[in-house]
């Protein structure tokens, strides 16, 4: 035996182990005390169930381990209720980001104490010493321009100093009280997104802001995560399948949604469904993470997805509905879409881009408005034309050619006369899908003359602009195609389906116009056409379209498209999405388990939505709350409107009547606010408390007083003059959010104008000829509009860095709360693993502490006041019948000369009482309106009298004071119980009650969907014990009945409950005036904005040099693998697993152009600002496009930028807000406002930047 084995041999004798014959393996039993370290490390005292709130839709349930009172780590819970024996389960749900969360608890970026900006604190203390009163002190500090500007200029430059909670809360309270009294409660704003993933933490602050009369800002539209196509098509915000339903899909397209990265916990349902033969297609311009799972990968140029979808639709319409009519598809379209409804054809307006003629010289028409019962005489529609709401009862033709108003239209939704008729039961009616179907059918008494056809002119926006085309006409053209028509009641009409075939270029014999000869003909709509635009081979587009449809045939509708930010964050995403939704509707996949759309970005499902809305809105005490479209708020508050000046008619159709001529998109915002289509806060250039006092003094009802003042020109909308100090937002509270490091499009404008500190804005303000005509222009742009920025957070972000007051928040492992999502059908709990450490407080405790201070100050400074609230025309209420046909009859009349009627052509005006001294007490108790007046969600009324009584027993009643006798809400757990008790999804009695009411309206059985759960009351203890499945409820459109997977619109399809739209069906066609103006009546391809053309100071993609100091690229901001928005980007684990700081991903070709090697420092610069980052050079990136991941904040490893001499910016330093008028249209059917349902999106995908290799010697200060 060699001496070399001596050591091991020795070991063999010394230890009880057994060494293998050849001395290579040592087996050991017992005697292993040397490894006890690991056993000790694993031991822990308790495991607590909690989750992660806000910015992630995961809603994963986690085990948080605690040892010696210290949170050690977390792993996922695995106890989700079963999905069933033949499906994978939800366990374990989580991702690396969530797994790294506990790092924050004791990290050096944890905010442990209250902080106040030092300059401000000194000024405040001095003023308070002088005045002896916090409110007077605040008035002094903000009233002295030198003092105010000094602390505003100091924002974001360090110098935060510790304060006590007492003092910090006092400053915040005084600012609120002073602002409400001096400027008005609507000058107070709150920003906190996504309630579903921590309902109470969101709700308590929203309750605080809204009960004060302040303005809560929307987020879903602001994030550009709201797919505007959803309200347009479905009349619903977003309703999508739970992730376990992906398993049921037999064909799955992931289109601009990178599931492994952005839906990490659920991606396995996709990978596993492949094993049951699900075919997977990925559409992505880069080799995205999900591409590895795909059977086919289509890589269109960024932002051209709409063209690809239209071409797929072209193939489906051609092969499955025209050459051969697939019965399943046709029947679906007749019953569940607006396809058979009649649209009036109008002559091309004279103001359009000239007359357009078909080949034979015949005049062409343009598609106009839906034909409604009001357009027809009583003899054509006996007994219908004169019924109530006839303007909202669209008409179709029966198979015998007679006009019919089918059940289920918007007109049937309201009024006693139509009770029981709001349903999709067609009875004996067999709608004509195409008027060509009526060939040979006599029109009988209904119409006049035989079937004929006419040419229609349709806009196109894909034309390459000529050198002489100016911005107003560039990139536009007209295509002329024919449709079969009839005359009905004197109106020339065709069906939506016939218009769809024209739009998609699917020709039929005998129709006039220009039609493609085949798939290889690059005429608009064909596969060859899209190839020129997208780069995707025509044959591939045709094949995927055909497969999608054939799979729908083979599987009864189980073809699904998962779609997301990659296709939804564009300026024209509503058109992209409408082209997607057309695919799922025309193949009959919507409302089918395993089929339809699955939109996943920023979506959420606050499943107990009714209870949350009561609590968060303070609807139990005062209605209506002030809720504002976030994008418009920031656009005005940050003065981005001054740099925009985008002429609205650059977006218009060449066939448009010209309603946008001479106006900017900002002017359309003004009109939308004036008409009450969209909310607008601050509303008027006067304190609404003073307006109420004036009306009282004048003895006039508030609404009449407001109209008087408006017409007299003494009162103006704040939106008309956002730079008037009277119209500034003054106090902003941000919690559960990082607006300045994440969602703030136009970040540098925020810094410059809202905050009044240093910024890297390079853009010039609009020249006089590009300024809005309906807004006042002040030569000097304000700097530092905001008096106070308060942030509650547990970590340092850009928002805390720039805040005046930073309050230390409890983390998700230190509080009670509720979580739900649309990714799974459960409600589960946050629970404190430890108490909030140091001086941190839960959001719940913090807001109540400030509220108590406000109420105390209010006794002297505010008292009980009345407040005039201007409220927009609301969806799911009769307001949506304010504008028949979406036609403006007074568009040419200046606002003040119109016959102003609140609730019709201007906002509703409501006076409410604000009892400020009782404010804190009211916040902490459930008010009387909940049971007294009731609740409503999406038009479904609920009467929770029994629930409120029971809440009084569970939570206890307030014994005395101004809210004596009301159920207590003074603990977070009380709020949790209230939310659960007041929602149908968590309270079977309310679910049944709501369904019974919808049954009366629809005349269809529905309550059986919830009857099995009528006795169930999900309590907070239930959801703390285990994720708890929700109850099927009329608050949502799907069903969990019988343990099935949730899929949107299943109730509509299976139970014939109408969609909340004009026709009650899914809409291909939209006829609001503004949609007509934009040429977007039908799904249409609109390319990414040509930024250089629209904004000459924007770099030109057309002028990319081969080599040089800089390269012009498309700038995309997809979601990151290593963060949830800005959170976790500062987390050491995530940084160690990636590249340790901000990056810009670029292709080898673009890197070579500017001589950049991997990991070298680069700067991206455009008119909006600059970011500094290190290059990641990878061949998975397409040339001409760079990625800087979404919400790259400036807190970690960001040097000073060469371009600005300031700290490099965030990803949004290169973006800016641009408004699309179609998002501002309102007052009409599904295009009516609801919070986070409709509004202009803060889109950011169309941006272009230059990238430079910068000096590699970086400085940090």
């Amino acid at each position: 035996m060699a001496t070399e084995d001596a050591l091991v041999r020795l070991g063999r004798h010394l230890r009880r182990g057994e060494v293998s014959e050849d001395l290579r393996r040592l087996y050991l039993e017992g005697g292993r005390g040397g490894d006890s370290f690991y056993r000790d490390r694993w031991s822990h005292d308790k495991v607590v169930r909690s989750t992660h709130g806000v910015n992630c839709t995961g809603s994963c349930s986690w085990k948080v381990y605690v040892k010696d009172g210290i949170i050690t780590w977390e792993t996922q819970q695995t106890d989700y209720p079963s999905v069933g024996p033949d499906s994978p389960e939800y366990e374990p749900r989580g991702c690396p980001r969530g797994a790294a969360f506990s790092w924050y608890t004791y990290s050096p970026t944890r905010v442990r104490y209250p902080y106040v900006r030092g300059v401000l604190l000194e000024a405040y203390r001095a003023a308070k010493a002088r005045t002896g009163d916090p409110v007077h002190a605040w008035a002094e500090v903000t009233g002295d321009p030198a003092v105010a500007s000094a602390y505003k200029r100091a924002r974001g430059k360090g110098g935060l100093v510790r304060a006590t909670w007492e003092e910090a809360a006092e400053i915040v309270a005084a600012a609120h009280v002073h602002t409400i009294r001096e400027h008005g409660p609507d000058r107070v704003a709150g920003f906190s997104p996504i309630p579903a993933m921590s309902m109470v933490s969101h709700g308590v602050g929203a309750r605080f802001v809204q009960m004060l009369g302040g303005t809560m800002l929307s987020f879903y539209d602001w994030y550009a995560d709201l797919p505007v196509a959803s309200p347009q098509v479905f009349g619903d915000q977003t309703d999508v399948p739970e992730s376990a339903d992906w398993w049921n899909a037999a064909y799955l397209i992931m289109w601009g949604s990178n599931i492994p990265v952005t839906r990490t916990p659920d991606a396995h349902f996709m990978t596993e469904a492949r094993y049951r033969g699900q075919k997977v297609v990925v559409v992505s311009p880069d080799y995205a993470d999900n591409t590895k799972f795909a059977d086919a990968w289509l890589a269109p140029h960024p932002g051209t997805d709409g063209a690809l979808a239209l071409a797929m639709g072209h193939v489906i319409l051609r092969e499955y509905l025209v050459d051969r009519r697939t019965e399943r598809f046709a029947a679906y379209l007749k019953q569940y879409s607006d396809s058979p409804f009649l649209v009036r054809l109008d002559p091309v307006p004279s103001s359009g881009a000239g007359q357009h003629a078909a080949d034979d010289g015949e005049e062409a028409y343009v598609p106009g408005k839906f034909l409604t019962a009001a357009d027809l005489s009583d003899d054509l529609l006996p007994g219908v034309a004169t019924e109530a709401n006839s303007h909202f009862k669209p008409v179709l033709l029966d198979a015998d050619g007679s006009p019919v108003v089918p059940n289920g239209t918007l007109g049937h939704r309201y009024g006693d006369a139509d009770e029981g008729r709001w349903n999709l039961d067609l009875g004996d009616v067999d709608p004509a899908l195409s008027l060509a179907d009526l060939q040979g059918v006599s029109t009988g008494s209904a119409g006049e003359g035989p079937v004929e056809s006419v040419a229609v002119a349709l806009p196109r926006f894909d034309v390459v602009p000529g050198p002489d085309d100016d911005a107003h006409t560039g990139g536009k053209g007209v295509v002329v195609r024919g449709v079969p028509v009839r005359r009905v009641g004197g109106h020339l009409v065709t069906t939506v389906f016939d218009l769809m075939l024209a739009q998609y270029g699917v020709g039929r014999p005998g129709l006039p116009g220009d039609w493609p000869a085949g798939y290889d003909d690059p005429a608009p709509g064909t596969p060859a056409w899209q190839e020129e635009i997208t780069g995707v081979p025509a044959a591939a587009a045709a094949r995927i379209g055909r497969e999608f449809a054939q799979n729908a045939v083979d599987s009864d509708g189980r073809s699904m498209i998962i779609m997301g930010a990659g296709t939804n964050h564009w300026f024209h995403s509503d058109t992209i999405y409408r082209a997607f939704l057309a695919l799922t509707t025309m193949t009959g996949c919507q409302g089918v388990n395993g089929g339809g759309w699955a939109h996943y970005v920023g979506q959420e499902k606050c499943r107990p939505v009714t209870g949350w809305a009561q609590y968060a809105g303070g609807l139990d005490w005062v209605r209506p709350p002030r809720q504002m479209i976030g994008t418009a708020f920031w656009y005005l508050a940050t003065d981005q409107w001054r740099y925009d000046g985008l002429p609205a008619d650059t977006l218009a159709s060449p066939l448009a009547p010209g309603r946008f001529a001479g106006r900017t998109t900002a002017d359309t915002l003004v009109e939308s606010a004036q008409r009450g289509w969209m909310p607008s806060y601050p509303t008027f250039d006067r304190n609404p408390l003073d307006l109420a006092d004036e009306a009282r003094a004048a003895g006039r009802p508030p609404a009449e007083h407001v109209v008087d003042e408006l017409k007299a020109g003494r009162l103006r909308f704040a939106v008309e003059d956002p730079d008037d100090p009277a119209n500034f937002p003054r106090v902003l509270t941000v919690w559960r959010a990082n607006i300045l490091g994440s969602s703030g499009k136009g970040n540098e404008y925020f810094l410059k104008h809202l905050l009044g500190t240093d910024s890297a804005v390079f853009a010039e303000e609009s020249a006089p000829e590009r300024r809005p005509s309906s807004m006042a222009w002040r030569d000097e742009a304000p700097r530092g509009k905001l008096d106070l920025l308060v942030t509650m957070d547990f970590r340092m972000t850009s928002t805390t860095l720039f805040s005046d007051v930073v309050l230390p928040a409890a983390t998700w492992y230190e509080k009670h709360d509720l979580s739900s999502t649309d990714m799974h059908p459960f409600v589960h709990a946050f629970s404190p693993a430890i108490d909030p450490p140091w001086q941190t407080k839960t959001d719940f405790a913090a807001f109540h502490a400030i509220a108590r201070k406000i109420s105390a100050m209010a006794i002297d400074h505010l008292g009980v006041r009345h407040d005039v609230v201007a409220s927009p025309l609301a969806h799911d209420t009769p307001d949506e019948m304010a504008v028949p046909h979406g036609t403006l009859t007074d568009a040419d009349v200046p606002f003040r000369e119109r016959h102003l009627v609140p609730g019709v052509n201007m906002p509703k005006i409501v006076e409410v009482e604000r009892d400020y001294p009782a404010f804190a007490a009211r916040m902490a108790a459930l008010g009387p309106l909940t049971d007294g007046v009731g609740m409503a969600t999406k038009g479904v009324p609920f009467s929770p009298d029994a629930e409120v009584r029971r809440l009084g027993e569970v939570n206890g009643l307030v014994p005395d004071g101004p809210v004596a006798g009301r159920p207590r809400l003074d603990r977070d757990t009380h709020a949790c119980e209230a939310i659960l008790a007041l929602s149908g999804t968590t309270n079977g009695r309310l679910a049944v009650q709501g369904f019974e009411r919808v049954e009366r309206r629809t005349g269809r059985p529905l309550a059986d969907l919830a009857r099995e759960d009528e006795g169930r009351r999900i309590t907070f203890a239930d959801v703390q014990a285990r994720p708890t499945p929700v109850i099927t409820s009329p608050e949502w459109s799907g069903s969990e009945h019988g343990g099935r997977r949730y899929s949107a619109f299943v109730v509509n399809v299976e139970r014939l409950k109408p969609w909340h739209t004009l026709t009650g069906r899914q809409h291909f066609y939209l006829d609001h005036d503004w949609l007509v103006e934009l040429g977007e009546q039908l799904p249409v391809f609109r390319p990414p904005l040509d930024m250089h053309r629209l904004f000459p100071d924007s770099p030109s993609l057309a002028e990319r040099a081969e080599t040089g100091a800089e390269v012009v690229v498309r700038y995309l901001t997809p979601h990151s693998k290593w963060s949830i928005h800005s959170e976790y980007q500062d987390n050491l684990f995530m940084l160690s697993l990636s590249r340790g700081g901000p990056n810009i991903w670029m292709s080898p070709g673009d890197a070579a152009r500017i001589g950049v090697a991997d990991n070298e420092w680069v700067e991206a610069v455009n008119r909006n600002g600059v970011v500094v980052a290190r290059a990641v050079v990878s061949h998975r990136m397409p040339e001409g496009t760079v990625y800087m991941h979404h919400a790259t904040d400036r807190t970690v490893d960001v040097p000073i930028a060469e371009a600005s001499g300031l700290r490099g910016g965030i990803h949004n330093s290169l973006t800016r807000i641009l408004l699309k008028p179609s998002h501002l249209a309102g007052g009409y059917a599904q295009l009516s406002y609801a919070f986070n349902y409709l509004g202009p999106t803060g889109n950011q995908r169309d941006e272009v930047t230059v990238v430079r290799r910068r000096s590699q010697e970086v400085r940090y200060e």
Partner: protein
Amino acid sequence: MKVMAQMSMVMNLDKCIGCHTCSVTCKQAWTNRSGMEYVWFNNVETRPGLGYPRTYQDQDEWHGGWVRTRRGRLKLRAGGRLKKLATIFASPKMPSIQDYYEPWTYEYDMLLSAPQGAHTPVARPKSLLTGKDMKIEWSANWDDDLAGSTATMQDDPVLKHMSEHVAEELEQTFMFYLPRICEHCLNPACVASCPSGAMYKRAEDGIVLVDQDACRGWRQCVTGCPYKKVYFNHKTGKAEKCTLCYPRIEVGLPTVCSETCVGRLRYLGLVLYDADRVTEAASVEDEHELLAAQRSVFLDPDDPEVVAAARREGIPEDWIEAAQASPIWKLINDYEVALPLHPEYRTLPMVWYIPPLSPVVDVVASSGNDGEDPRTLFAAISKLRIPLEYLAGLFTAGDTRPVERVLRRLAAMRSYMRDVNLGNTPNESTASAVGMTGPQVEEMYRLLAIAKYDDRY
């Protein structure tokens, strides 16, 4: 026959989404402490890529694992014990910290405590080794998702051994993820490398551990392990490694990395093997035979003779039952879809992998093939984006045939189950074409797709 039990793992790479949750939960539970900052018992590599530590697979460089001598004996590539004794005070051949990565933190405190100044405060990076400012130039996962592919990808040792050229072109892009833990080998080179006898395999479950009391910090184990899954704790001066979460395994819980795997791709179970045949299997001459040789060491837990032999060795009844219920046995032996990582290292690793399917390569530029059509399904296997040769370089010492056989089985399962899914009669010939029966395919499908918690562990 000497029956022993080995706790083993199979990872289905075809389901791995590369999320790194396993890495983070493992890090948090085990190595989130000083001296271990750079250590990830579990890491996930993007392939093609350099791995962690970078190029660890290049044994010409790092000298890990075993080599077969001309006489048919095994010896450590880094040299026998004599050499080790002779050079025990010299630094062993092992990756530098820069090959793992220099761990860092940030000046987070500045975000809160920065005094009023001219600029927005920032947290700049500081080395955790030196405490000084640093520019971050490598990390635990630097080339994630092909980051920096133009700079590093061609240095991937697996790619270097391939005959066909893999270009860095968008249209040709492929990648997949390789999560790695300690292999808990049947023939561990680390144990044999240890001059102190501090490393051992637990007799009852084969978990390879370092006795923290016995370790003298010679670091020969780091060299010996070809997977570089033994690490040196700079604070304690001892070696540490993945423990297969034995404190959890002992109480019936799966490892942290397994239970927290949101891709649901990890399977854990006991395998019975014949310890007497380990050396023989590790010593076969042809590297392509190592897979079969290792499989032949495993013992059928349902074979009465094996059960009897196991009882004679004192293996408890519940241990035998666990081996019979083991998903590992099914995946390795019944369905033959799992393959070992780098069998050519001759350590007989016990964490096996199901190789990933991938889309056919020409789909972006042309109309593409239809991977779903049963007729083209098998033909398409050779045209997959991930070159078979690359997978073979990882799992079969370069032999593409076993890899292709696995992928054909997976593809056949998809094809067969699509018929079931659509309510059609499944095609038995699809199963038989890959040497399986329909019921077998459905059984495998349940294990791979439905994959309930109790079936995975």
